[in-house]
């Protein structure tokens, strides 16, 4: 993978990225429902994705992504976090990474353009699946509660 250098850079800064994201999630109006989630749990979730990004992008299977994010959707439903807040949070997790690359001066440089293209595609595919499975898990839990 051409983008592996960028992925390792992200993993190396996972603490800082998780910190920034947790702050953004707790201060954004679009994710205010996440204030119902204990801060330590929120931080740990953010950290898990960033710390093991190469695993998520390269090694984990579709069913592992499904298992993890459907469970996340179910948990947020049980915490009464609105689904749109969860959706936006997952989008923000990706955006936070891309903002980090800009801050690091990686974005747009001639050396990194191929890696960035590849990373953007992989991140897009991974987060699309994460959102899809989290939504399915959330909807399933909501249906069970209503029944």
């Amino acid at each position: 993978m051409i983008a592996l250098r960028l992925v390792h850079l992200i993993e190396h800064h996972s603490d800082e990225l998780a910190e920034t994201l947790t702050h953004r999630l707790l201060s954004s109006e679009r994710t205010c429902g996440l204030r119902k989630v204990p801060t330590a749990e929120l931080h740990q979730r953010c950290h898990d994705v960033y710390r093991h990004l190469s695993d998520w992008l390269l090694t984990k299977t579709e069913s592992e992504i499904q298992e993890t994010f459907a469970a996340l959707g179910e948990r947020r439903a049980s915490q009464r976090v609105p689904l749109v807040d969860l959706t936006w949070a997952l989008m923000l997790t990706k955006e936070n990474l891309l903002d980090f690359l800009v801050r690091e001066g990686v974005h747009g440089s001639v050396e990194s353009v191929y890696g960035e293209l590849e990373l953007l595609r992989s991140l897009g595919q991974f987060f699309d699946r994460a959102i899809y499975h989290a939504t399915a898990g959330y909807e399933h839990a909501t249906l069970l509660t209503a029944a």
Partner: protein
Amino acid sequence: MISLRLVRLIETEAAAFSDSLRQKLHTSQSAQGLGKVPERELHDRCLEIYSNLGDWLLHKSSIDVKNRFQDIGVLRARQNVPLGDVIWGLFLTKEHLWAFLERQGFLLGAVELHGELELLRLLDHFFDRATYNQTIGYDHGRESAVPSTSDAGKTQRRKEARATA
């Protein structure tokens, strides 16, 4: 600067893109529920994005995106399409474009590659906002099918107060 040449190419080939996307939607297990949407309507929605891609990415405001995709979300809820299938349909719409751009990328020089990178970022940004607003619209559509309660009213007002995506 995004690659306008690629945007124009997609717009010119929009009808062919829409046809191949609809085939993908029909065969995808995760978008099965979209079978409840009339064929003509599905075709028009695909075409609406691809044939006006430059407008969606460069000229339409966040309010335009919000209004359009919340309306579609409301409609899909009323058509009883599961929300996961609605979301997957949008992801496939993006994925279809990305696969095309990836193939084009092999033919590009360094300068145009930067244009492609910017285009991919804009596409990602646009589809995230479309998905977010479609989900909000879907919730509204679902709630409007249920007798309103004071709690639902509060939820509705809170959603309306949110900043537009």
